[in-house]
Structure formats: structure tokens, C-alpha cells
């Protein structure tokens, strides 16, 4: 047991737990009971003897409180609630007594998943009784999906996959525990287990009327293995009673009282604060600094220079080197850092980048052959006999996540152990970083998850953890809380890559496309075409060629809500609108007809979404001058037979003569697949993404000048307020016969093309580069 500044580690952790109050939200920590007793050498370090765990997900207390361990990070998507619902549905416990708690990332890495969670039940995406098609992706721990077959299967929070991947084994975890509670009770009462019923944490023997509660038999259940766990089945949606109902998020009471512990709120005894400045030009480093100028300022303790974080730890992305001032309070550290002279060493080739020359490089690349990804039919032949050719080039800018909570992490490095408190979407990657940076065995890296103040694209791929670990490693024995300013957060984030696309269609005499040629240009690593988000024709075109062009720039790009797909849907849906107008046809009917001609497996679902959204919106009914409606399809996965998510939206947009855009009304038709786990969270995610993509469409762009990002706080980087929220949002769900692929990051991408088309309908002018607000939209 390490000693930290005279504080025994157990006492130290207990102090942290006590500081959070009775309801410990945010941390996985040994409970106070464990902290106050001396464990026997054989005791399992994560177990509390007072409240035994039934399995790795479920702990039941004598008072029937059920703690459900959640392996994904809560960042507003409602995962603490939806994951708990999936366990509770099968466990048949009292929902009002469920308490979510973060699963231990350290334990996840140490233990293998139970055998009975490894096999996905059922026959894939089209089987309502099965587990769908969870995709754990490549099983490289530094890749997308984490440690192969680790205890919790997946501790990432990404790609809208928490429900899609977790559902079957969270249901199984609940079912396994329920069965063992029943088996233990049957043995105690000496009755056949088939005569027992479990409901609401009560076990009843039907014929005798005898009852007990989970809390009373949990010790026996914990000691009762299931003889055939592989025989346990999960409920299908027609049997759900909790799943599929609207449930309020379990942590809302803490969120309206200021009690949630985000990473920024972590306080440890003896903790010092670090403020950071990293070179604003990526790839740059510190040339010199003069700590003596600020050493005597109030509270100031020390300074740490840190190098560019090893790109192997940040998925190949090259951030910057920097310097941190450490002080008793963060404001003291920041004040001193602001006054400390720093000179940067900036690679001249990176300083030469600016928005205009980067954009020009991408556009020029479109004239090169590129990498052909799809080529079917005779594209050139069809163009040669076209009645009309339509061509358009679209552009989308760099975009940051700009989450509300600036990057931060609290790290304590001692000689044999690292503790990290952080809101993190990829904790196993962060543990690996800590081990590599400190040289301490990864087994001894403990990551304590906190809630995140917004995520919007795997938080862990920025260097916030690496900065904090490097600074703490230089200050062993002292807990260091590193916090970025808002300006640093704009340097530390990864961006959605700037992108361009040229779409060219050959139309026949009736205005239908007979050939489509698509070329996209995007910075490599930007989760564009290389992640298969092709601008594939979901609409029928007999001859089709798609090629992609990737370029190398210095801005770290990657996972941001919607990734490259959001840009691609803007290109595709905008162009379909342009073709419909060129053909003199209604954009809704044009889409519908082109979908109907395909042989795509989910074409009926896509048509249903369009029909429903159009009907909801009063499509075709007259609107006053200055208002227009536009429709678009949103889909992911619809090219195959697998999981997919399909929706359509109609956006009613007004444009004042002074050029002010307003999203007046949104009508959303969204499929449920076989079932949504928590429809309330789905509605909230749709509403939120309407705002998200409204901002992408109308307001937001990150520009590059002399190699650095220009907009680095909310005065320069605009985010819409209440006054721009659409007054009316109507959401309607419709059932479909497959499991969903997830909907947390790519719904409402249609806002982008719809506003552009509405502006075109009102003014006759089409703007193909986002954001629209940079254009003069006045009309008369």
C-alpha cells in the first residue's frame, strides 16, 4: 500500500468517497466499508463484504438496492439509464431502487468476460429474439473496440453503439443473476425452482404464497453458480415491460442540483492545479520559457515542460508540446502562466497552412484520378448520351466538438501505481497511455470514470489525459488536477476534417439520373471515405462511379459527432435536391421514385420514412413568401441486410429579407426497429442533434491561419442559443423488422441540405459551402 504525503491510500480513497456525499456519483471506488476494514489477503479487492455481487454487473444490498455497473460513460446520451434498464428488465428488480455506478476499467482489463456472454444469441439483425449484430470491430486495444473479450466486453463510448453492442449481454447479465436468485431460494425453501416467480425484487412461491426479497437471499445467490449459464435466454421485444417505455434519466436529480461529479469537480487531499499552454500550431513545441518571471507569484509551485504526446498514444495524431505551471489553485496557475514568457518552435511547413490553401489543395485533388471505390455500369458512356449534365462542388469546414466541459484530468502517480480521475470515452486507451508514460505496470493503473460535460466524439483521442499524466509523472506523490482553458480546449480537441465533394450527374430527357460520378476530398484519418461512408447512391442510378482523394494536413482530425458521414449526407442530399429542381420535379417525389427503383433491402423502410415525414409536415400545402420546406433521408447501414438506422425529416425554414435564417419546424419520422430501449432518450438525442447540425449548417467553421486554429472561444466560434431553437419539433416513430444500428451521432444531418434548399427556393441562390451564415442571404 503506497503512502501519499502521509495519507494511507485506503483512507485517502475513503476521504474522496465521503466528500461526494452519500450518493457517490461518478466514481468507482472501494466502499467505505471496505476502506475501514483490513481485507484478508484473499479478499477480492473490488468486493464489499456487506453487499455481495451476484455477477460483475450486479450488486444487491440487504435493503434491495440494486447497484448496476455501467461500462460506458454518461455524457448526456442517457447510457446510465438505458444500460440499467436492459439489466433490470431481465433481473426483474424494483426499478425505483436501481443505482448505476461506473464499472472498474482496471477490473475490465484484469478479468475475462464470463463464457456465457461471449456468444451472441439469435440469427443477426433480422431476428427479434436475438442479440442483433454487435460489432466489436477489430480487437486491438488501441483500435476502436478495446481489449478482446475483456470482462465488460467494451468500455468505449463511441459510434452510437452502447445499446447496439451491449444489449444482449446486459440482458444476459440480468437474467443470469435472476436465475441464481431463484435457484438459491428454491434450495433454501426446498421447492422446485419452476414454482418460483421473480418480480419487482420479490420472489414468490405461488402455491404457498411464501415470499422473500432479493436482498434477503443475495448472499446465497452469490454462492450459487448457475449449472448451465449457456442455456439462459433473453427476452424479445414482445416480452419487454421496462425496456421500450419512456424512463427519465436516473441522474437528473443530481444534474438539477449541481451534485454530479464531472472530471473538473474532482478534489483530492493535497491536490495541486496545473494550467497548460500547448503550441497553438500542431506539431510545434516549446523553444524556451522563463519561469523565473512568475516563480514568486501567489500560490505558484513549479513548472513542467512536456513534449508532443507520443502519436502512438493518440492514434497517430500529432498534437503539440507545451508547458504547465503548477499552483495551489487553478486560477493562480493560469494567472502565472499567462504572464510567463514562452517562445515556440514551430515547423515552418505547418505554419504555412491556412484555410484558403488547404481548401484549394482539396479542390485541386478532385481533378486527379483518386482512389476508385465503386464503379459499376458504363459511367462515361451514359454521360456521352445525357440529355442534361448537372455538376456541383460542395465544401464543409473543419469543425471542433466544443463540448462545454474543458479538457481536464486529475492524476496521482506514485512509484508503483497511477490513479486517474477523468471523464473519458476510451478508458482502456488512457490506461495504456499512463503505463507507457510512467513506466508503471498497466495492472496498477486505476482509472476512475467521471461524468462528461459533453463528449461528441471519443474524448480520449485528444491529449488531455496524456498532458495530465506527463505533468503528474514529474510530480510523483502529488495529485495534479490539470485543466485546460477554453482556448486550450480548442487546441486539444480533434476536428472533423475539412472536406470537399464534386458530384456530377447525367440526366435523361425526363430528368432521371442515368449516371452519377462522385469525387470526395478529405484529409486522411478524417473518418471519411476510408471508414466506408461512401457517398453511395441510395437513390437509383444505373451507372455509378465513386472515387475518394485523401490529403495530408497537420490538423489532428478524427471522431467528431457524425464523423465524415455527416458531410457526405450533406453532399448527397443537397445534390438530389439540385437534380430534382433541374428535372422540374418535386424533391420528395423524386427521392421516393429513385428509392423505389432500387433493390436495397430496406427501401420500403426508407420510403415509409419519407412518406411519414412528408405527411406530418403538410408537404405541398402553401407557405407564405419567405418560407420553404425541404426534405431529406438519413440512413446508416441501408446498403446491406444488417443493422441499420433510417429516418427522414422535413424542415420548414424561414428566411427574412434581412437574411436571417430560422428553422421553424422539424417533422421527424424515425424507425424503431424491433424496439427502442428508452424512447425518451431517443427523442432527446434527436432534438439535440437538430441543434447540433443546425449549428454545423448555419454558424460553425474553424479556420486555419498561419497553421493555428483561429476561433478559440465562444465569442469567435458561434453556438446557437435558445432564440434559434425551432419552435416546433414533431417526432413520430414507426416499427421496422431489424435491429437498429444506433442513433446518437448521425440523426438530423438533413438540417444541412434542407436549409440550403430552402434558401434556394426562397432566393433562387444555392450556396454549396457551409456554414450558410457566412453568405449574404438578403433578398427582396
Amino acid at each position, binding site marked *: 500500500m503506497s503512502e501519499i504525503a502521509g495519507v494511507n491510500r485506503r483512507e485517502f480513497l475513503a476521504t474522496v468517497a465521503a466528500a461526494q456525499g452519500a450518493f457517490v456519483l461518478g466514481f468507482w471506488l472501494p466502499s467505505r466499508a471496505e476502506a475501514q476494514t483490513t481485507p484478508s489477503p484473499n479478499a477480492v479487492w473490488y468486493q464489499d463484504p456487506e453487499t455481495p455481487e451476484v455477477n460483475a454487473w450486479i450488486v444487491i444490498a440487504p435493503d434491495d438496492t440494486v447497484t448496476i455497473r455501467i461500462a460506458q460513460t*454518461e455524457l448526456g446520451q442517457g447510457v446510465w439509464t438505458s444500460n440499467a434498464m436492459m439489466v433490470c428488465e431481465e433481473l426483474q428488480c424494483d426499478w425505483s431502487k436501481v443505482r448505476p455506478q461506473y464499472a472498474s476499467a482496471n477490473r475490465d482489463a484484469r478479468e475475462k468476460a464470463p463464457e456465457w456472454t461471449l456468444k451472441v444469441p439469435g440469427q443477426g439483425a433480422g431476428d427479434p429474439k436475438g442479440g442483433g449484430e454487435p460489432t466489436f470491430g477489430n480487437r486491438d486495444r488501441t483500435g476502436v473496440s478495446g481489449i478482446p473479450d475483456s470482462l465488460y466486453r467494451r468500455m468505449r463510448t463511441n459510434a452510437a453503439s452502447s445499446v447496439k453492442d451491449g444489449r444482449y449481454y446486459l440482458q444476459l447479465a440480468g437474467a443470469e443473476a435472476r436465475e441464481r436468485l431463484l435457484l438459491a431460494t428454491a434450495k433454501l425453501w426446498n421447492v422446485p425452482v419452476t414454482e418460483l416467480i421473480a418480480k419487482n425484487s420479490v420472489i414468490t412461491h405461488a402455491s404457498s404464497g411464501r415470499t422473500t426479497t432479493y436482498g434477503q437471499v443475495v448472499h446465497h445467490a452469490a454462492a450459487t453458480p448457475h449449472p448451465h449459464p449457456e442455456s439462459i435466454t433473453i427476452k424479445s421485444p414482445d416480452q419487454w415491460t421496462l425496456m421500450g417505455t419512456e424512463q427519465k434519466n436516473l441522474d*437528473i436529480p443530481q*444534474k438539477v442540483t449541481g451534485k454530479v461529479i464531472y472530471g473538473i469537480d474532482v478534489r483530492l487531499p493535497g491536490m495541486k492545479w496545473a494550467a497548460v499552454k500547448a503550441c497553438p500550431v500542431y506539431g510545434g513545441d516549446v523553444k524556451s520559457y522563463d519561469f523565473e518571471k512568475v516563480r514568486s507569484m501567489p500560490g505558484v509551485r513549479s513548472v513542467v515542460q512536456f513534449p508532443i504526446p507520443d502519436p502512438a498514444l493518440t492514434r497517430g495524431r500529432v498534437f503539440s508540446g507545451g508547458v504547465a505551471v503548477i499552483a495551489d489553485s*487553478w486560477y493562480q496557475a493560469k494567472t502565472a502562466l499567462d504572464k510567463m514568457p514562452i517562445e515556440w518552435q514551430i515547423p515552418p511547413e505547418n505554419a504555412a497552412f491556412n484555410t484558403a490553401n488547404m481548401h484549394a489543395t482539396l479542390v485541386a485533388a478532385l481533378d486527379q484520378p483518386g482512389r476508385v471505390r465503386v464503379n459499376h455500369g458504363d459511367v462515361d458512356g451514359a454521360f456521352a448520351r445525357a440529355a442534361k449534365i448537372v455538376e456541383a462542388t460542395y465544401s464543409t469546414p473543419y469543425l471542433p466538438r466544443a463540448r*462545454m466541459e474543458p479538457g481536464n484530468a486529475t492524476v496521482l502517480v506514485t512509484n508503483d501505481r497511477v490513479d486517474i480521475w477523468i471523464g473519458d470515452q476510451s478508458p482502456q486507451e488512457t490506461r495504456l497511455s499512463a503505463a507507457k508514460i510512467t513506466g508503471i505496470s498497466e495492472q496498477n493503473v486505476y482509472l476512475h470514470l467521471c461524468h462528461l*460535460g459533453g463528449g461528441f466524439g471519443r474524448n480520449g483521442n485528444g491529449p488531455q489525459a496524456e498532458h495530465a499524466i506527463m505533468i503528474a509523472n514529474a510530480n510523483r506523490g502529488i495529485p495534479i488536477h490539470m485543466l485546460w482553458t477554453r482556448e486550450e480546449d480548442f487546441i486539444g480537441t480533434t476536428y472533423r476534417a475539412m472536406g470537399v465533394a464534386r458530384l456530377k450527374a447525367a440526366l435523361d430527357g425526363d430528368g432521371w439520373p442515368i449516371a452519377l460520378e462522385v469525387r470526395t476530398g478529405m484529409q486522411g484519418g478524417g473518418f471519411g471515405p476510408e471508414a466506408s461512408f461512401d457517398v453511395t447512391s441510395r437513390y437509383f442510378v444505373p451507372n455509378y462511379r465513386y472515387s475518394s482523394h485523401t490529403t495530408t494536413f497537420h490538423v489532428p482530425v478524427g471522431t467528431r459527432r457524425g464523423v465524415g458521414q455527416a458531410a457526405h449526407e450533406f453532399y448527397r442530399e443537397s445534390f438530389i435536391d439540385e437534380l430534382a429542381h433541374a428535372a422540374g420535379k418535386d424533391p420528395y417525389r423524386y427521392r421516393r421514385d429513385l428509392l423505389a427503383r432500387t433493390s436495397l433491402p430496406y427501401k420500403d423502410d426508407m420510403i415509409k420514412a419519407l412518406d411519414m415525414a412528408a405527411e406530418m409536415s403538410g408537404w405541398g400545402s402553401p407557405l407564405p413568401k419567405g418560407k420553404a420546406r425541404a426534405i431529406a433521408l438519413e440512413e446508416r447501414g441501408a446498403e446491406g441486410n444488417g443493422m441499420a438506422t433510417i429516418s427522414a425529416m422535413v424542415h420548414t425554414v424561414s428566411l427574412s429579407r434581412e437574411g436571417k435564417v430560422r428553422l421553424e419546424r422539424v417533422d421527424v419520422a424515425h424507425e424503431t426497429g424491433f424496439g427502442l430501449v428508452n424512447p425518451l432518450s431517443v427523442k432527446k438525442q434527436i432534438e*439535440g442533434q*437538430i441543434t447540433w447540425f443546425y449549428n454545423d449548417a448555419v454558424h460553425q467553421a474553424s479556420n486555419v491561419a498561419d497553421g493555428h486554429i483561429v476561433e478559440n472561444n465562444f465569442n469567435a466560434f458561434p453556438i446557437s442559443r*435558445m432564440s434559434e431553437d425551432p419552435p416546433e419539433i414533431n417526432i413520430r416513430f414507426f416499427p421496422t423488422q431489424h435491429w437498429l444500428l444506433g442513433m446518437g451521432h448521425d440523426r438530423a444531418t438533413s438540417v444541412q441540405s434542407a436549409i440550403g434548399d430552402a434558401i434556394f427556393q426562397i432566393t433562387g441562390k444555392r450556396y454549396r459551402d457551409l456554414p450558410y451564415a457566412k453568405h449574404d442571404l438578403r433578398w427582396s
Partner: protein
Amino acid sequence: MAFELVVNGTSHTVDADPQTPLLWVIRDQVGLTGTKFSCGIGQCGACTVHVDGRAVRSCSVPARTAVGKKVVTIEGVSPDGTHPIQAAWTELDAPQCGYCQSGMIMSALALLREKPTPSDADIDTQITNICRCGTYHRLRQAIHLASDLMKRTARAV
């Protein structure tokens, strides 16, 4: 330099440079972390608290300006989280990540005290806080619901 600050009805002796923004004194000296830091330049409103009943962006005012006045933070809205505005937020499940919500609630509460029945236009002009999750749609409904609940509660008292 030590000075007295009254936060949520309790007097605290604070040892800090009085020029330190009120936000950091509340978070680090008084120890109440419900009030959030986000932009540091008074743009986003995540740090909103009440000073003598007025909504103030605490990242951008020196702590000394609050000396002798009553500071109320999210923790002081109600002892048990049952204030009508908190009930309204909960009823509509308004927060997503929740990070901006302390500031949102403090801004909305100031509006409701000034205008017990705010119009949508009042909300548009006076609630200028940023929410990146895009909870605005539910927040507008929650403000109207809070207005109803506050009037009903007032009648009951």
C-alpha cells in the same frame, strides 16, 4: 487576503486575491462545485450565480464585488432539490450531459422572479446561456412549467 463572502446564507472567510473571479472563489475556496467553468469570458453562462438576486456570470466578476451581498449558487436553490424549477427540469427530463444546467437554472430562476409568466420572446432575449447538447427545446417547456409550478406553490403557501 481574507474577506467574508455570504454564499447560500452561510458566511465564509475566504483567503484569496479579491480580484479572483467569483467563480473560482466559489469552486475552490467555498468548495461548491455545482457552478461550472466553461469559457471564462462571460459568453456561455455555465458559471451563472445570483448576486443579490441578479443573475451574474461569475467567471467575469471579481469576488470583491460580491462582498456584503448575498450570493446564491445552484446548491442554494433548495435544500433538497425540490424547488419548482428543479421539479420542472426533472419532469421534462431536460438535461443531457447536464454541465450547463446549473447556469441555465440560475438564469431561468432570475427571469422567473422578474417575470413570473415569461413569454417565448422573454426567454429568447434573457436566456442566452449555451447548451452544446441542444436541450433548448425541453428547456423552453421547462421554464413555462416552472412558471406554473412556482405560481401554484406560491398560492399554496
